[in-house]
C-alpha cells in the first residue's frame, strides 16, 4: 500500500547532552530532521559508519527513548503519544528489534523454549484451539529450525547463525510486523551470512514483514532492500532506490562509502608516499559532509540528495 505507509518518520531529532567531569556539557546531535516512509512488506536500509546515527534512529522507532522533535507513525498511529503501558505494549508488539550480537542478546541461563514461550504468553499469542507447544513448534519452523532438537537447547549450544534465527523467531513470536535489524549479520561468518539474509527476505516476501535494516555493508543492503538511506552525522545525506544508489551514488559521502567496499577485482597498490591519499580524501569528504546544512533535494522520482 503505497498511499498508507506502514512506518512514517517525520522530522525526528534527538540531541544528547554529555556531561563530563572536567569540562562543561557538550551537545551531540544524534539525529537531525530525519524523515522517511516505509511501506508494508518493504525493506529500507539505513547505511552509514559508526556514529552516523543509524542505530539511534532504529532505537527511536522501537520506542526505546523519547525523541526531542518530530513524530513517528506506525501503521498511521503515533508511537510518541502512547500514554499507558497497554498502549506501549501494543507498540512493542508491532515493532521488534534484532541486535548485532547474537551472543549477548540471548539469556545464557535459559533454554530456547523459555526465550520463545515468554513472548507468546506475555502477549497472549496462543490462539484458542492451539497450545503453547504447537505455537513454539510453528515459530521455530518459521525460521527454519528443527523444533525437536532446538527447544531444549541453551544459547551456548547454538552457532551464531542459529542464535540469530532464534532472535528473529523471538521477534516473530510477539507478532512483530516491523523488525528493526541492527547489523544482524555483521558478527556472523561470511558462509552463513547469506542464509540469514535469505531468511529475512523470505519473511519479507512470504509473511509481509516490514524490515528496517541497519548496516554498514552496502552489498547486503542492496541484496535485501528496496530503498536505502545513507546517513552521516545524524542526517540522511542521500535517499533512494537501493539499486540506483549502488549504481550511481550522487552524494560525495555515498560515493566514498561505495568506493570503500572491498572489490576483489581491484588491487590495492600503494607505494608509501601515496598510501594515505585515500585517508586524506576520506577526511575531506567527512568534514565537508558534516559542515553542510543544505536540505534534501529531489533529483529524480524517489531520489533525494543533500547538496554537498
Amino acid at each position, binding site marked *: 500500500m503505497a498511499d498508507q505507509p506502514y512506518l512514517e518518520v517525520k522530522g525526528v531529532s534527538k540531541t544528547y547532552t554529555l556531561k563530563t567531569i572536567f569540562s562543561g556539557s557538550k551537545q551531540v546531535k544524534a539525529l537531525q530532521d530525519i524523515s522517511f516512509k516505509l511501506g508494508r512488506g518493504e525493506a529500507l536500509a539505513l547505511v552509514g559508519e559508526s556514529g552516523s546515527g543509524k542505530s539511534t534512529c532504529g532505537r527511536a522507532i522501537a520506542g526505546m527513548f523519547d525523541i526531542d522533535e518530530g513524530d513517528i507513525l506506525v501503521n498511521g498511529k503515533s508511537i510518541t503519544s502512547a500514554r499507558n503501558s497497554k498502549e506501549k505494549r501494543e507498540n512493542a508488539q508491532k515493532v521488534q528489534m534484532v541486535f548485532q550480537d547474537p551472543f549477548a542478546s540471548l539469556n545464557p541461563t535459559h533454554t530456547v523454549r523459555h526465550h520463545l514461550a515468554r513472548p507468546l504468553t506475555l502477549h497472549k499469542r496462543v490462539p484458542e484451539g492451539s497450545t503453547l507447544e504447537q505455537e513454539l513448534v510453528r515459530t521455530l519452523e518459521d525460521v527454519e529450525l528443527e523444533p525437536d532438537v532446538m527447544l531444549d537447547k541453551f544459547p551456548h549450544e547454538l552457532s551464531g547463525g542459529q542464535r540469530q534465527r532464534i532472535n528473529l523467531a523471538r521477534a516473530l513470536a510477539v507478532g512483530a510486523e516491523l523488525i528493526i535489524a541492527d547489523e544482524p549479520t555483521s558478527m556472523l561468518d*561470511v558462509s552463513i*551470512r547469506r542464509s540469514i539474509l535469505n531468511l529475512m527476505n523470505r519473511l519479507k516476501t512470504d509473511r509481509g514483514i516490514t524490515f528496517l535494516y541497519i548496516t554498514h555493508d552496502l*552489498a547486503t543492503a542492496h*541484496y535485501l532492500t528496496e530503498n536505502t538511506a545513507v546517513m552521516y552525522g545524524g542526517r540522511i545525506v542521500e535517499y533512494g532506490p537501493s539499486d540506483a544508489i549502488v549504481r550511481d551514488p550522487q552524494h560525495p559521502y555515498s560515493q566514498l562509502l561505495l568506493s*570503500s567496499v572491498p572489490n576483489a577485482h581491484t*588491487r590495492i597498490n600503494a607505494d*608509501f608516499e601515496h598510501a594515505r591519499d585515500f*585517508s586524506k580524501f576520506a577526511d575531506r569528504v567527512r568534514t565537508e559532509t558534516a559542515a553542510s546544512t543544505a536540505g534534501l533535494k529531489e533529483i529524480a522520482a524517489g531520489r533525494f540528495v543533500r547538496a554537498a
Partner: protein
Amino acid sequence: MTQSERFLDLKGLEVDYMTLDGPFRAVKGVDLHINRGEVLGLAGESGCGKSTIAYALMRLHRPPAFISGGTITIDGEDVLSFDEEKLAQWRWSKVSLVFQSAMNALNPVLTIFEQFRDVYHRHTGEDTAAARVRAEELMDLVGIDPARLDDYPHQLSGGMRQRVVLANALILEPQMIIMDEPTTALDVVVQREILQEIAGLQKKFGFSILFITHDLALMSQFADRIAIMLQGEIVEVNSAHEILHNPQHDYTKQLWDAMPSFDDAKGVA
C-alpha cells in the same frame, strides 16, 4: 624455489586441544610457506584453525592447546627448539602480531607512549628519551600527530587505535607481521584506510605478512597468495589471481558465493 627465499616454512604442523573427550586436532598437518616480502592471505570460517596457526607460529598457544607434530622454521631457525628466554627476545623483534580488536590489544590504563616504551625498553634496553624519539617517528609513519602519544587508548578513534597497534608492531622492525583480522571490527571506510596504510608500509619496509581474515574479497585486493582453510586443513593455495578467477576447491567456490555482491540479482521478488 630455494629454501632461503622462504622466510617461514611450516611442515606438517599439528595442533591439538585437550578436551574431556581426548585430544581434538584443530590443525591437521599443515604445510605452508611465506617468502620474504610476501603477503599471504589465510582464509576460512571461524573455528577452522586459522587463528590457532597464528598463535602456534609465535608459540603463544596456551594449554589446553599444544603442538603435537610438525616443524616451524622461521628465517632458518627452528622455532620449536627455542627456550623461554630466546622466545621472549625473538617475539616482536623478528615476528610481531596485530590483533583484531585494537581496544583489547592496548592497555587501557597506560598512555600510548608508555605502551611503546615498554616494548622498546624491554627489547633494546634504551631509556625513555630514546623511546620517545622512536615512538614519535612511528606515529609520524602511520599518520598520527605525535602529540597524541600522551593520550589514553579510549581517547582515540577505532581507526587511530588500529594505526597505533600497527606502529607498535613495527617498533623493532620485524621481518614478518601476523595480522589476525586486523580490520574486521572497523567500518568499511576506515577498513580501507587501514588497508592502504598496511600496503604502503609493506612496500616501504618489505616485511612479510600473514594476513588472516574471512573476507575473501578484501584479501584478494591485497594478498600475493591465498590459502583456504577448512576444518584444520589447507584445501587450496594459489596466487590471489587464480583464487579469484579460477578457484579449484568446492569450498573456495562456496566462500565466494556466500558473499552477496552488487552484481547479484535483486533478492526482492
